[in-house]
């Protein structure tokens, strides 16, 4: 059974077509980079997988079942700016909010929940900062908090939206290694990014998206310049192409 199966997905936003006939499969153990320019529909695709946006055609199947909000098989890591970082909350409490949906009304976190939070913090190496207010963390540490919050549900699939945005290269490298090892632990990881170098470096597969899937393959198989000009809408002399050849 595939971790994630998307067939013929169409999504419109405000009457405009955003995604057309998207077909994408993900297996556990894969770290897949979803690349495309602004407005290519990367975030929309993630939201469609989470069933947070209405689709007008096609199917999204998660672990053999149709997707719906609140399924604990999927861990979602939204963009960092979605989170209210000045909220008076400690790292471990912020990670615990990832289990709010699972807990349901009236129930308070118990031993199992705190253990899950502890494991998630260990996994992203934030245990030493567990009691620190989230507002005092650096960009890379904040990204780890969001990953830990998603891991608190022990998901089989991890969706990461622009995890490298606004982070320096050493931080990107550390996070890239973390995502690769999370994938190697029998999880399917899909991440959107602008950052070609980081993506090629850490991903086992790249998907080029611009409204539709332009290409899908191992980084080494995507040497054809035309794929990149088509995806990013750049000219044949764009520095992007030099970068593609270089990596």
């Amino acid at each position, binding site marked *: 059974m595939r971790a994630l199966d998307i067939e013929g997905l169409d999504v419109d936003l405000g009457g405009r077509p955003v995604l057309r006939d998207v077909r994408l499969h993900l297996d556990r153990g894969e770290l897949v980079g979803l690349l495309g320019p602004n407005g290519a529909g990367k975030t929309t695709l993630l939201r469609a997988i989470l069933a947070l946006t209405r689709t007008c055609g096609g199917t999204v199947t998660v672990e053999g079942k149709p997707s719906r*909000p609140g399924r604990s098989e999927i861990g979602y890591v939204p963009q960092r700016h*979605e989170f209210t970082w000045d909220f008076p909350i400690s790292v471990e409490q912020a990670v615990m909010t990832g289990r*709010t949906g699972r807990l349901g009304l009236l129930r308070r976190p118990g031993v199992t929940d705190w253990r899950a939070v502890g494991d998630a913090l260990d996994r992203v190496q934030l245990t030493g900062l567990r009691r620190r207010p989230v507002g005092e963390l650096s*960009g890379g540490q904040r990204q780890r908090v969001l990953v830990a919050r998603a891991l608190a549900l022990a998901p089989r699939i991890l969706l990461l939206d622009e995890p490298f945005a606004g982070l320096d290269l050493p931080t990107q490298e550390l996070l890239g290694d973390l995502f690769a090892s999370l994938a190697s632990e029998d999880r399917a990881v899909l991440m959107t990014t602008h950052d070609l170098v980081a993506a090629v470096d850490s991903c086992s597969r790249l998907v080029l998206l611009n409204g539709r899937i332009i290409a899908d393959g191992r980084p080494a198989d995507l040497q054809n310049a035309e794929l990149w000009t088509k995806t990013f809408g750049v000219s044949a002399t764009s520095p992007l192409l030099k970068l593609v050849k270089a990596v």
Partner: protein
Amino acid sequence: MSITEFLTDLLNPDLAFLPKALAIAIMSSIVCGVVGCYVVLRGMAFIGDAVAHAVFPGIAVAFVLQGSLVLGGAVAGVATALLIAVFSQNRRVKEDSIIGVFLVGAFALGIVIISQAPGYAGSLQQFLFGSITGIPDRDLYVVVGAGLVILGLVLVLHKEFVAVCLDREMSRAMGLPVFWLDIVLYVLVTLAVVISLQTIGNILVLALLITPAAAARLLTDRLGVMMLLAPVIGGTSAVVGLYLSWSYDTPVGGTIVLVATAVFLAAWLVAPRHGVLTRRRGRPVERELATGTSPHPGSGLPDPR
């Protein structure tokens, strides 16, 4: 006036309105302090302001019809809160503009309605600035009952409110009913405002919602502590404010708000980590903190401490 004299007055059967006003003022400040924490942390002070103004037409109708002011205000306030929640789903006009439209619209409606009642000028002043006399017994029960219901709902929905405050997108992904949680929070804010109107008045009620919670935020980085501190600050301001108002014959709403404002200013100056004065004194500590962090700033490595 000494504290003993104030206590004697509180127990004097001829001044029965005084303990009633004190009970209502304390209950409203506690409820506003707790609910105000969400208002301050979500940056929805403007919604509080809107709701405070929006209850006015309901009070005006209740006044004209000789009904319960608390009930009239609650109906109008909740209706406006729902309208704001529904209209702000349309992302073309931003939420603050929607709030602005309904805030002034509702207040205008209230003024037109109350002008139909003869001799409204005196009552108008009472609505706007609060009063401790003329509160019917029935309202005391309504305020205490409503206050307990609000605090109970906060206790039940706290972790959901926190999740939505922190990250709406993630909350939706977790399957939380974000829209309905917003509605419940708006309604709770409305009810907290309505029960506080009697003593504090329409214009000043916002202070009870915002000031104690903001002062508490300055004093702590922990949400649990903040939600305990805010009602304590609010309740203390209510008691001290009512005492001062009774002693010096000043308007009760204004006096309570001034006491709360003084607490806020004091917190701003001497808060343990964020205060203006303490920060200046604490410079060496900051330097130590800076050298104590990871070798690559922003590298995400765990702190050695």
